[in-house]
């Protein structure tokens, strides 16, 4: 916690000092881990991304501004959504989705 004293956080209580210290350590650790892992095996990461479910893709899209993940129709169907002919967002391919029961 001596580092915090140099920044000027000296008079604050122990609990706040601990919070700031651990927050900084976790932030730096997560960011460096992410970048090291991503740049060391990029292809494997891209493969992992293809297997993600709808909720996981949504979560990643929510926290990032530069996400390139899109949800395909097949993933909607796998997750249990029933897609209708009239109300579905069509993907680039010309696949049509049958109504339930057909």
């Amino acid at each position, binding site marked *: 916690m001596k580092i915090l004293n140099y920044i000027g956080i000296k008079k604050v*209580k*122990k*609990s706040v000092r*601990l*919070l700031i210290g*651990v*927050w900084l350590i976790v*932030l730096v650790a*997560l*960011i460096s881990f*992410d*970048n090291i*892992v*991503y*740049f060391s095996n990029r292809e494997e*990461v891209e493969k*992992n*991304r293809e*297997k*993600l*479910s709808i*909720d*996981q893709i*949504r*979560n*990643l899209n*929510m*926290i*990032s*501004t*530069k*996400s*390139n*993940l899109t949800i395909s129709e097949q993933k909607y169907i796998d*997750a*249990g*959504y*029933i897609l209708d002919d009239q109300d579905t967002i069509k993907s680039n391919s010309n696949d049509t989705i049958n109504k339930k029961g057909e």
Partner: protein
Amino acid sequence: MEFNINRFIALLKRELMVGSRNYLNVIFILLILGIKEVSSILFSLEYNFPLDNGDGFSILIGILTIAVSIQVLRASETKMKSNFGNSILIPASSTEKYLLEFIKVFIVIPVLYTSSIIFLFLIRQYLLTNLVGELPKGFSYLLVIKYQLKDYISILPLYSIVLYFSLFKKQMAILSVVFIVFSVLIFSTLDQLIGGVIAGKTVFNILPYYGTQGFNTFLIIFEVGLFLFFQYLSYLRIKEREV
């Protein structure tokens, strides 16, 4: 770490006597906020839609609900300085006070929330059937409890952050939500910025192992650590208030 069971029971009794009006307010607020949960459960059953349980947005809504209810629970403490002084001067050790906060936040509020949702469903089933029709097929009260339990477990580590922030003198439970959101935003922005600098173009490098077995194990360890760390911080905070 002093603990006396008789003193603790007396503390619980005092809490009920002093804060009974706050608990009624919390029940009222949870009944209003519970309407969203009821409608989403009904919607998912009606249209065979998987319930968005445990994803980012529902977690955010969950923390906001908890932050608001904790804030209301502390209304009498934060509104008047004398009440705050009294709560510090109660003849009880900081372990007992911490346990009281733990029970209030981690047991009473979720139980009140779940029971208010069940109450809303009972109203829907017995009073509104003639107006809006019967409940959809596949509905059971066990299902509601299961959904709530799932939400509760996914939210637990963030819940402890809200508890810690709410222990400050001013109204800071709502601020904890801002802290959580900003932490995530700062992490994602810095991560992408550094990734962009290394690669020379924009890359999507956030949480590379997200969704794999190893990541899930790491996440569980991280969340348990976060929960325990903030419990310790809350205990420290209660101890510091008395100094």
